[in-house]
């Protein structure tokens, strides 16, 4: 038995296709990104080694920091919106008829591509014909905003489709966690005279804290990598007001052909994402596993 199951050739045959693909497509490019960041390069011509110049420029680049700020704002919005999702899941999980059906309805936007979502919401935000402003006009708002063309509000406007896109995802996760809480705990609290609010806050929330922490990490890290929707909806505009780190990097590399500088930004994006991941994991580290 052991001889068969530890045959080196067989192990290699089974592990190598996956390992090679991940190595070539994910890990080698990562190293190359850091390396290209040291080059002056337009993507096609000869590379010229310029040391840390790209990285130094990036650190002094106001546009880069603006885009980083926008990414962090999105991360904050996303984290705050978890509270709404959590509240909805609490209601959904409290023995409501049709909960399964509603949960599936909530999930539908999550299935659509960011491009389709972006195009749909461009129409929703359309100042003259979009449903959003039609509804606002109906309720007597006289001058509804020009959502995507106003640099002061574009980032908040973009957050609405993000809230819409991920609602079902987080509600689904919280709902599953809440359903795992043994009923006896809730019943016991009820007998002791706890109100529904108290039960939600004092019993259910602490019990699913582990899952909540995971979703905080997911929301923050996901926001730092956010790209498709913004790229299609506004292209980072107007005037850079909705540029995020990934879209800025993409623009540098594939629109202005500054591959060296783009790589430096790409590498910084990676570093920032990893640092933030480690920090939140530390902050939200489980002190003790929940025992039912």
């Amino acid at each position: 038995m052991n001889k068969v199951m530890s045959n080196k050739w067989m192990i290699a045959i089974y592990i190598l296709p996956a390992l090679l693909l991940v190595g070539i497509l994910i890990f080698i490019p990562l190293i190359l990104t850091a390396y290209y960041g040291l080059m002056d390069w337009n993507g096609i011509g000869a590379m010229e080694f310029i040391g840390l110049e790209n990285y130094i420029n990036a650190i002094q680049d106001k546009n880069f920091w603006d885009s980083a700020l926008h990414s962090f704002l999105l991360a904050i919005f996303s984290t705050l919106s978890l509270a709404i999702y959590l509240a909805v899941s609490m209601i959904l999980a409290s023995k409501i008829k049709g909960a399964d059906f509603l949960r599936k309805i909530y999930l539908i936007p999550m299935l659509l591509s960011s491009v389709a979502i972006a195009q749909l919401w461009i129409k929703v935000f359309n100042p003259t014909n979009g449903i959003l402003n039609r509804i606002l006009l109906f309720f007597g708002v006289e001058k509804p905003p020009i959502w995507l063309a106003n640099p002061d509000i574009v980032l908040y406007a973009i957050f609405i489709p993000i809230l819409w896109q991920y609602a079902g995802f987080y509600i689904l996760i919280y709902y599953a966690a809440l359903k795992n809480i043994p009923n006896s705990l809730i019943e016991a609290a009820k007998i002791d005279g706890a109100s529904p609010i108290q039960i939600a806050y004092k019993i259910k929330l602490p019990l699913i804290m582990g899952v909540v922490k995971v979703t905080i990490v997911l929301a923050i890290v996901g926001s730092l990598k956010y790209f498709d929707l913004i790229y299609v909806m506004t292209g980072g505009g107007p005037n850079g007001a909705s540029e995020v780190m990934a879209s800025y990097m993409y623009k540098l590399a594939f629109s202005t052909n500054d591959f060296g500088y783009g790589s430096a930004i790409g590498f910084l994006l990676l570093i920032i994402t990893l640092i933030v991941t480690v920090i939140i994991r530390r902050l939200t580290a489980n002190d003790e596993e929940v025992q039912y």
Partner: protein
Amino acid sequence: MNRLGYIILYLCLGVVAVFQILPIIWLFLFSLKGNREIFAGSPFALPKEWKWENYLKVWEGGIGTYFFNSVWITVVAIVFTSLFASMATFAITRMQWKFNKFVLGLFMVGLMIPIHSSIIPLFSMFLNVGLIDNPWSIVITYTGYNLPITMMILLGFYYTLPREIEEAAVIDGCSIHRMFFRIILPMTTPVLSTIVIINMIYNWNEFVFVNTFISSDKYKTLTVGIQNFIGQYMTDWGAIGATLVISLLPILIAFIFFSNKVVEGISSSAVKG
């Protein structure tokens, strides 16, 4: 709970449901209207005359090519991902060797890497081997980038398989390949279907790789292709609506039939992360 309480709870849930579903219903409605009706009529009125010709127009405009590309690229990448992920997970969880935990760790690190940090070198690598503007670059990329998450979903299932299966197979003189393809792989069917659904949603909707690696219209997939279409029909809202509906229909249909698998897949791929 009293009656008023329930009414309030349902009201909250209803508001969220409306928020989630209203834009899609509106999209479907205007995909069947002419511009005049869209611009003048009530946004939620049913179309006065159902303009199915909007769909005919975009279909004849060539959306079929994009659709076909999306289908074959999605399917081929799913087959590769499922096969390679199953093989690797089998080797890591069932076979005995020293570095299996380390190799597993490598795959799991792959989960944390933002694709944007590696897309520039990927582009130049594909350029050097002549895979730019070749749909196989997309297939390979989807396969590689979906491997870590797919293996993560598979892991739990593989760990729970009883050892006796392999023992019995080995005693009967079964080779590793026979054991994997004839015994183990068929046993993982329930989790494989979850994996297929999750990979389908990812691949069907993917945008950045296609947008970067593919330049010819004939190789573009639906997500990137609809961008062209929408540019082309700038002011024809009916046609834009029809284009979008066509792009999201396959996923919606899959969801209607396999919603439990989708729910399972999304929650297992998320929480374990």
